[in-house]
């Protein structure tokens, strides 16, 4: 089977996975106690008003019908409207997805910037103080909760040193103007969000580099009299990058879904906070719409990871 056929098969699987995911969320959200209309309108509202809202959002119909109606709307490109805010879900998504993507990208760039050199030097000078230092940092990066790191970063770099703003992502009130005004509010949240990944990726690259550096073809490369930098950067890194790149792609999808605490601390209008608010208020259409997008994102990054795999490793052909 060639790569295109494999890709086609993977893409065909997407709707199946999405139906299972959305159906699960659909049932779970509705099975938990709490009524969106009562939460929105309050207890004192007349039964007629409640009934009207219920009918508008098809909440009076049986569960399977509700799902089918929602699914039909989604296929036509309509994600419905928020029960609480009475705004189209797609509109809310649009605003927040961009912010979340920007934050995830920034965090990923930070994670790569730190983890690649860290993993390489730790592998080259393994069991020396360089390696111990790098490994020590990785343990620290793993262990520190991101909210704690966020608070430390805010205290040191925003409050005491005043280098970066505490918040301001997605707002037009950033100080100054131009690129820095856009970039600066991302720095602290990106560091807080990406530190776990610096440790995770660093450790992954370290172990795959150590594995690769022990291979016979590295000895061959040295036996050819190549410069050590060429042996590392071309012969070793290209092999070590195969598991690394795949993991990075998968983690990018993951980073979209785990931003809630960071969004909360830095007052970032991202997807996480929107989903949290929607869940608390039983705002079903918003929860479903956002879940759908996150699931799609996860699936797409996984497929991208698989495709990258074939590019990096000529032995892999689907």
């Amino acid at each position: 089977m060639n790569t295109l056929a494999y890709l086609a098969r993977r893409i065909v699987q997407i709707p199946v996975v999405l139906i299972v995911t959305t159906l699960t969320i659909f049932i779970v959200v509705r099975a938990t106690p709490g009524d969106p209309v009562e939460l929105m309108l309050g207890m004192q509202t007349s039964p007629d008003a409640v009934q009207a809202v219920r009918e508008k959002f098809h909440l009076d119909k049986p569960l399977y019908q509700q799902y089918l109606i929602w699914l039909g709307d989604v296929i036509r490109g309509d994600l419905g409207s928020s029960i609480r805010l009475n705004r189209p879900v797609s509109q809310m998504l649009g605003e927040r997805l961009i912010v979340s993507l920007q934050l995830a990208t920034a965090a990923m760039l930070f994670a790569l910037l730190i983890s690649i050199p860290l993993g390489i030097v730790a592998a080259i000078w393994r069991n020396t103080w360089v390696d111990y230092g790098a490994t020590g940092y990785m343990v620290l990066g793993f262990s520190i909760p991101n909210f704690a790191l966020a608070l430390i970063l805010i205290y040191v770099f925003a409050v005491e040193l005043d280098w970066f703003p505490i918040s301001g992502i997605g707002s037009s009130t950033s100080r100054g103007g131009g690129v820095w005004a856009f970039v600066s509010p991302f720095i602290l949240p990106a560091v807080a969000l990406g530190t776990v990944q610096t440790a995770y990726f660093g450790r992954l690259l370290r172990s795959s580099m150590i594995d690769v550096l022990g291979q016979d073809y590295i000895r061959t490369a040295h036996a050819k009299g190549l410069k050590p930098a060429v042996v590392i950067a071309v012969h070793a890194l290209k092999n070590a990058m195969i598991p690394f790149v795949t993991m990075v792609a998968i983690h990018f999808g993951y980073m979209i879904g785990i931003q809630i605490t960071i969004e909360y601390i830095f007052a970032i209008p991202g997807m996480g906070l929107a989903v949290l608010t929607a869940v608390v208020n039983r705002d079903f259409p918003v929860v479903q719409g956002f879940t759908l997008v996150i699931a799609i994102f996860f699936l797409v990054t996984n497929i991208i990871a698989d495709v990258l795999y074939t590019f990096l490793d000529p032995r892999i052909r689907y």
Partner: protein
Amino acid sequence: MIESAGMEPVLSVRNLHTRFHTEDGIVHAVGGVSFDLLPGKVLGIVGESGSGKSVTALSIMKLVVSPPGEVTADAITLEGEDILGIDEVRARRIRGSRIAMVFQDPMKSLNPVLTIGRQLTEALREHLGLSDRAARDRAIELLDRVGIPMARDRLGDYPHQFSGGMRQRVMIAIALSCNPSVLIADEATTALDVTIQAQIIDLVKRLTEDLGTAVIWISHDLGVVAGICDSVAVMYAGRIVESGPVRDLFHRPSHGYTLGLLGSTPRLDDDEERRLQPIDGLPPSLLDPVPLCPFLPRCRHAVGACREKPPAWRDVADVHGTRCWADLTPYWRATNG
């Protein structure tokens, strides 16, 4: 121990020691190896796994990782130039250009994610400073020479797209690309089918004769060594225990270990009654070198002197010497039918 008969050796090694510092102690992988390699000649180094053959090669190539490895010698000279004390930058200029190496497993020795073209042209660009274009042309010529059909179309292929024998041909092309004066083939045919082995041996022999390259052929297989080498050094427990011209050594084995090796090698002209004689026991630990002959515990021919003092090097014939006290002349006829 193999003396140069008037000719200036291309590679000369004197008293090479390689130790590895491990948690269990110091492993004496190579314990005082000396030999001369004459221009255009093929020297075989035989011995079982762990006898120090490969480590000897890697030590000469300066590919022993230090730490834990430690290489010392009285002298290592390449074409009259001392290469023992040179720094890593100069060692790198020699590797791949003046001494090249072919390894055992061609699947593992070629980088799986780089094209054959890339792996072939690297050394050319590094050592000869060829342009991409010139290196490519030379690569095609080399592949053609080692017998890879449609060489031009195969530069973009990856190692997994070649068969085992073809991969080893590529390795040979890489090793010979910069026209080295010494080629070290470390178990270069061990991982291959017997028919392919013969082709590869033939190829190496033909190419190195054409190019005038001297070869160190490392193998545990006496048959292969007999087919390709001019002279042989037999290694045991990190030392050369016997060395000499290949015919002389096979006809007049003068060390208990060599005799044992010959007795355990099947031959086509064997009588039906002749049974293969395995060498009983295991090679000694290299952690604590014994002062006596290291083969003593396994030797069937040990004499009184073997238990009293370490064997001294003695000449058996012209440029044929051994490190053995026993007189093995009664067996010369027996092993050669």
